[in-house]
């Protein structure tokens, strides 16, 4: 039963993730006054890449890097229930909690960082270093917000947190949501915190040495991971979801906001983004936490 459930979650996340990615490419295209590719183009690309050969490989750790990343993404997905109350689409989430999910969010990227390091491509390692330097600053506001939410709902179980919101957390604690949103934009790899991959700027960040089937794997995990993160955010702040319509509606609204934010603002350098995140969003989060828990 759990196996079938997990498989359905995987397929849903795979398709929805690529759908969102296609929409993202279209929407950003409109911002830049051009027409984007067809919505399912990225999906077909990933399928196509799975049939291609890679140009080089660098031994077993390099080979395992993207596989760990994919496993990390699927793990994250399975530990976050899709719906607040449903018996279905909840994977193995009853055996985990929010702390576990917070760590699983970085499991994949760290695994891949090992693969990148093995290849010995300095451009790849540069991306990893930027990512890790930025990671702690990025997590800070998110952690504070999440801790406040956990303390208020008295549990670290994601479904319980989603169910305990009589008024949505985004309405009840807007400051916490704003602070967490800054981190979330960075987690989604959007501007102004997108210096890790830094499209068009450095050679291409952590993915530079991966080609062919490796790239297909990285693209697929990114789609799944994006959807998992959106679902998590919906559970924490937007009251969770009871059915597919509500889930897709809420995740897409959040996604739309994030990509619009991303297409408007320019990119921070690594030290700038650390400085910014540790000052303004962290301050907002601390004020939010004090206001929310003061009694």
């Amino acid at each position, binding site marked *: 039963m759990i196996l079938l459930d997990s498989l359905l979650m995987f397929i849903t996340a795979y398709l929805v993730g690529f759908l969102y990615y296609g929409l993202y490419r279209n929407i950003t295209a409109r911002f830049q006054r051009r027409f984007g590719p067809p919505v399912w183009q990225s999906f077909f690309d990933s399928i196509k890449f*799975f049939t291609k*050969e*890679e*140009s*080089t*490989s*660098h*031994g077993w*750790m390099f080979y*395992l890097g993207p*596989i760990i990343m994919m*496993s990390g993404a699927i*793990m994250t997905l399975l530990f976050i229930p899709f719906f607040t109350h449903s018996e279905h689409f909840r994977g193995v989430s009853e*055996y*985990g*909690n929010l*702390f*576990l999910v*917070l*760590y*699983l969010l*970085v*499991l994949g990227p*760290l695994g891949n*960082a*090992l693969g990148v*390091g*093995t*290849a*010995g*491509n*300095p451009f790849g*390692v*540069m991306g*990893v*270093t930027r990512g*890790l*330097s930025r*990671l*702690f600053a990025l*997590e*800070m506001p998110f*952690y*504070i917000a999440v*801790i406040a939410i*956990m*303390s208020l709902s008295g*549990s*670290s*179980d994601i479904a319980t947190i989603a169910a305990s919101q009589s008024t949505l957390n985004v309405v009840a604690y807007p400051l916490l949501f704003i602070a967490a949103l800054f981190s979330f934009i960075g987690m989604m790899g959007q501007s102004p915190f997108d210096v890790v991959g830094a499209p068009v700027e450095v*050679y291409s960040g952590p993915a*530079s*040495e991966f080609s062919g089937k490796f790239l297909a794997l990285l693209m697929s995990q990114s789609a799944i991971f994006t959807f998992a993160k959106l679902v998590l955010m919906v559970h924490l702040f937007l009251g969770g979801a009871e059915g597919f319509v509500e889930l897709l509606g809420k995740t897409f609204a959040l996604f739309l906001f994030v990509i619009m934010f991303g297409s408007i603002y320019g990119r921070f350098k690594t*030290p700038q983004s650390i*400085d910014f995140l*540790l*000052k303004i969003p962290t301050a907002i989060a*601390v004020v939010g*936490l004090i206001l929310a*828990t003061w009694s």
Partner: protein
Amino acid sequence: MDLSIFGLSDIVLTLKATHLANFFASLIIFASLMLLFITKNYKLSKSFYALFTLLLSSLFLILYAGDYLLFFIGWEVMSISTYFLLSFSLSKETLHKYIIFAMASALSIFIAILLLYSSKQSFLYANAAESFMALGTFEGLAFIALMLFGIFVKLGTIGFHYWLVDAYQESHNLFTPFLSAVLSKMGVYALIILVTQVVELSYSLAIMGVITSIVATFKAIQEDSVKRLLAYSSIAQLGYIVTVLGVADGVGGALYHSLIHTAVKLLLFLNVAGIIYMTGRSKFSQLGGLIYKTPQSFVLMLIGIITLAGMPPLGGFASKFMIYTSLLDAKYLLILAAVMFSSASAFLYIYKLIYGIYLGHPTNKKLETVREVPWSFLIPQYILALLLIILGTYPALVVPYFNVILQELHLKSIAFSDYATLSTTYGEYNGFVVMSTFTAIFVLVLLVFTNLRSKKKEAKDRFDIAYCGEEPNEATHLHYGFSMGKELKRVSLLSTLYKNSVKPFYDSLAEQTLNFSDIFKKIYTGNLATNFQFATIFAIILLWWSLK
């Protein structure tokens, strides 16, 4: 123990085997057994092992003492035997630094103990809380401050860590694992005794611990020396323990993290010792690219760093989870955020640790001919790695044992249902499910992916990389990551952290002390005639005093 033959009839000393002491004693024995494996790789004199035995016995005296006086004797012997053990490899300056701090620690603990004794004339732990209550406000504060100073020096809490990093770096590779894994735990034990038997310290301890872990983590990121990085990491990890001991129900988390930290630091220091043994290099800027030369060491290091990072599915997550939930339960929300922040920052130095040694490119031709580390280094690491994997799968395996300790200390015990589920008031997780889900997904993805892949295309050599259309060669600087973390210096918030150090403070303290001692030099010149004059004056004063 009866001291009446010495004319000290009212002093009672006891030895007591508590479950808490047994736990720490088993850590000592376990760590010593692990170190036995590598002794044959180093030619050390007999006196080293004799002193090591003395050190071990002093540690047991600390643990099994039932009162503060025997505890102090153990502490003093520990400090001195450690001094002699360190003297085998330390430079004079570092050794001086160590002994001054160790003596200051021992003396301040001694004064604190005498303060406690002054109120109810008892050294026993059993009467300690009562004696403390009977102290005045000033004496009470002085007791806490002196006691904490002594313990913090041993733990290397930030501000008191001045001796620690250098001592760890220069100490013998056989002794460093012991320093980090075991000797620092004596500080933890003393702190647990203090907070459970004498006085709860709540916020002050938690804040001290959190500052320690954050500062030490950022200092670790900048280090080029492997052992210095691990030393700072050790300080940071002990900072978590100090933090969680600020919470009433934090002892469970502290015990769990002590266990994990002992195992993981033994593993990492042994791993690094093996690499230094084979290459003779101990800096990230001189290492690199060893992964396919020493694959077993790499995998063991990987298990170590996953645990150190507190990543599921290994044991490190269990102890971090305990720490986080006890802080959450006590509503130490901002402190919890700071602990998690420090834990996330640690990923940077943890990646540097594995990248600088095993990944990237070799920085020297000699590194291309390195062979695998000897089995004597690998066997203890395999045992430790197995322990960490088991603890990751069955995180509640040690909970029944911890509950016995917690009951003995009259603390709330940890909920226990089965060995796989670690449950707290703020949620639970099932280690077995986490481990098996990860393994299943990993194997599944691996199989599918390997079947898709028709033929392997390996790189010709290590220069066969995507490099902006150019072809790198021997002269190209490719081992990029050994200096990672440098850019943090450009962040204005963090640069203050890097600019400041405790060195100027201790330097000026040393200078002041020397100036002060000049006064005594005027009296004690070494000239016999002056000495005689002063002795005569002193005798006359005494005579006058007694006749008055």
